[in-house]
């Protein structure tokens, strides 16, 4: 799958904003928190699809060049995926709205609540590490597609002069 950097950047920014909002149920209320988190799972799947080739390459040749930097990326991303999955699943187990809509009623146990908050904290830490490991790509992409165009708009003088209206005066 070939996807341009711009598309990747837009998707990643959208996922990050969704993460920030979904991780704060106080901002949205519980119902939006649950549904946003569920759609966030779909966004993560899309993110993984965009990097599918890299994922397959890393999985199949992990031990060939064990001390390469990309192996660290892979391990961090793997733990991040596990943490996010546990957040989603434990969130479903303590869900008040999604499961109620499906007609399922579960006892909300304190264990699942603890797991939900613990895995959310782990996800936050791993997101920070994930960002750090892709820092060069983030900086370059943001500069190329966001900062430079904005600066260009404010600096660039008008490229073309205003067209002069030619009024033909008929005598």
């Amino acid at each position: 799958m070939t996807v341009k950097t711009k598309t990747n950047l837009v998707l990643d920014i959208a996922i990050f904003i969704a993460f920030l909002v979904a991780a704060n149920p106080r901002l949205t209320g519980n119902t939006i928190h649950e549904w946003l988190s569920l759609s966030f799972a779909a966004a993560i799947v899309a993110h993984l699809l965009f990097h599918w080739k890299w994922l397959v390459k890393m999985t199949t040749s992990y031990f060939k060049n064990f001390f390469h930097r990309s192996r660290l990326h892979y391990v961090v991303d793997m733990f991040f995926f596990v943490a996010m999955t546990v957040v989603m699943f434990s969130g479903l187990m303590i869900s008040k709205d999604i499961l109620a809509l499906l007609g399922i009623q579960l006892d909300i146990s304190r264990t699942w609540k603890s797991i939900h908050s613990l895995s959310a904290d782990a996800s936050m830490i791993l997101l920070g590490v994930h960002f750090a490991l892709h820092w060069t790509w983030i900086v370059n992409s943001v500069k190329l597609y966001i900062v430079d165009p904005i600066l260009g708009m404010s600096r660039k003088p008008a490229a073309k002069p205003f067209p002069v209206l030619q009024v033909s005066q008929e005598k």
Partner: protein
Amino acid sequence: MKNILYILVILLVAVTISAGTYALVENNSASVETTNASGEMSARQGGQHEGGEHGASFAGGMMGVLSLLAKVAGITAIVVLLEKAFALFQKPQVSQLTG
């Protein structure tokens, strides 16, 4: 068609992780429930008290977003700085080898 297969693979991995978590938690919590029944009661009461989380507060929520943003930025900054520090330590070794 290929993408559907990839999505199924991702979902399969996610389901496996979820099933593993469920098995771990339910096995452990089952043993707690049999040994301490009153503990479960207090957990349920705790759940009822937190009914207030259904409500939203924009100011409080935005503070939470900013706090989370600051935490992620802090962790990112620490790791980036650590990477740069490691790179600084590694550079002299490279120059010794090449020089």
